[in-house]
């Protein structure tokens, strides 16, 4: 929910306006039900993929694959340590659990889930490689390397200043992501409170979302500090440990119920 990655574009627009309008759009989508969110994703995904490919292809003339070397000159440990934080993103996949009950074709759920995991890995690797090939050692000194890379494009003095494409990708991507998380939040709360309908919860929770996102990450520095420090543990507990415990509990309860039934029937 940290749409604070906006600063590069609209310097003077207050953060609350950006977060607020984004949340409002997402709220409408979530209120419309899971199908609206899914159709939105269906509509935006091809656009995002095409735009990303467009940016990558246009950057090819400026790439310097030599920048990649030397690979792991201090052993594999620094690479592994650096991977701890980004791997946290993958635990976000637990959100799929909130969508699975709505699938019409449940048989293919696992297959497409896996395909999407690989697609995410591929995009993350491709994006980081592009930034590295272009900026080399100075990659880390840019706040948004991919954005800076897109600003660097110049084909025949004509195709220039394409950072707005990156922005379009971000907006489309965050819309889907926030909607899915928002949907999970609303649905979970409704079930927890034993409500028959989740719709009355959408706007009040959206209001809280806006407040929390500003309270939680008032600026980029705090956000990235959090990602580097407590993020991993937070995600590990909330998105790995608790769901695994829940799964185990469900298994045990199911087995006990089976046993009880066998006992009764036997």
């Amino acid at each position, binding site marked *: 929910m940290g749409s604070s990655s906006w*600063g*590069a*574009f*609209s*310097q*003077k*627009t*207050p953060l609350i*306006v950006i977060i607020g309008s984004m949340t409002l759009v997402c709220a409408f989508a979530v209120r419309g039900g899971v199908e609206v969110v899914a159709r939105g994703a269906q509509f935006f995904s091809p656009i995002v993929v095409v735009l990303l490919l467009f940016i990558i292809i246009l950057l090819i003339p400026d790439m310097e694959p*030599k920048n990649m*070397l*030397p690979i792991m*000159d*201090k052993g594999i440990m620094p690479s592994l340590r650096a991977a701890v934080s980004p791997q946290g993103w993958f635990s976000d996949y637990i959100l799929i659990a909130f969508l699975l009950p709505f699938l019409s074709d449940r048989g293919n759920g696992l297959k497409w889930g896996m395909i999407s995991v690989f697609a995410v890995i591929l995009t993350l690797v491709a994006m980081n490689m592009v930034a590295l090939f*272009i*900026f*080399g*050692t*100075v990659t880390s*000194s*840019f706040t948004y390397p991919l954005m*800076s890379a897109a*600003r*660097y494009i*110049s084909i025949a*003095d004509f195709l220039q*200043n394409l950072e707005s494409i990156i922005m379009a990708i971000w907006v489309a991507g965050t819309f889907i992501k926030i909607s899915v998380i928002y949907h999970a939040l609303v649905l979970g709360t409704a079930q927890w409170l034993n409500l028959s309908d989740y719709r009355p919860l959408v706007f009040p929770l959206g209001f809280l979302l806006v407040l929390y996102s500003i309270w939680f990450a008032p600026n980029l520095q705090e956000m990235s500090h959090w990602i580097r420090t407590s993020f991993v543990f937070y995600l590990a507990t909330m998105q790995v440990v608790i769901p695994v415990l829940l799964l185990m509990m469900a298994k045990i309860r199911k087995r006990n119920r089976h046993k009880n039934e066998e006992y009764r029937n036997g």
Partner: protein
Amino acid sequence: MVNSYFHKTVKTVLILSICLFMLLLTGCWDRTEINDLALVLGTGIDITDDNKIELSVQLSIPNAMGGGQQGRVGGKPTIVEKATGTTIYDAISRLQEKVSRHIFWGHNQVIIIGEKLAEEGIQKHFDFFARHPEPRIRAYIFVTDGKAIDVLKVIPNIEKSSAEIARELANFKIGMSVTLKDLLQMLSGEAGAVALPWIETKREDGLRVNGTAVFKKDQMVGRIEDKETRGLLWLRNEIELSSVTFEPKGAEGKISFNLLRSRTKLIPKIENGNWKIMVEIVTEDDVVENETKLNLMNPKIVKKLERQLEQEIDKRIHLTFELVQKEMEVDIFGFAEAFHRQYPDQWSKVKDQWDQQFPEVEVEIKSKAYIRRPGMSTSPQGLQEKEVKGK
């Protein structure tokens, strides 16, 4: 009945007020009209005697109605303004006091550094250009003799502005061509050296890229001429336009070759503690001028010429090495990166003493030249057949 009437009124009022409020939402917060902008085309950075930044900008003033950018402000297509401040941004805010339009950095094409500032150190002055969201990191960087503002003041004949000339010259890659991104990479690179193109305003209405300014860390320590710059480009695998002219052995007159394509590889080697770099060059050339009486259709003669062309290229590169490696002792060739990539362990031991190690590095050049085509003529033009050698 009353109820439905009431509802209708509320609805109408609501719709009307929404329409009214929409008027407030035209465009976004940061909206700026084009006729409120002054576009920066080129920037010059100088240093004053009391250690302040003198920032000069070349501005293009777009017309409110569109329709080109020429023929205003006393017939000049661009204007130059300057201001002094303690930092770049401080100077910019002083500059804004004089310019009635918002100074917009999105179209800044070149940044020119005055000689004096280059000698004092340039690193801290480039942070603004990489941090502020408006300037682009594709701006080309130059160093000039004397003051940077003089380059901006040139009103050229061919292009609209001198900034445009500088950018086109950089695009040609006839000398070094360094963007802000490249400069940032060089500044933070392991070699601790920077090479920037040198631009001069020798003529009233033009600019000339003439050689390269050589920096140790971020301070300029010297300058190399055009000829040595060629060697440098060859070593950095950045050569695109080049002509080689020499007098073949045993012939009168000279032959000129035009470079088609060339590839340079730096292969580092460490043998028994000896640091060595092999420079492998493969180049393809065309003959464009033949003053001699040699027949260029003869494969034997072409083979001989190829050998001599290789020697000629070797000679040029050696010239650069003599000057830059032995005299200036600055690693602008990218040797440090080459060693780091190939020998990470050994590199980490010497990386703090690279300044002492670099002049000791042995260099071996292995070039291979191919003469592809004789051009549109076979034997030398304007000669009787009996005069032609090597039939």
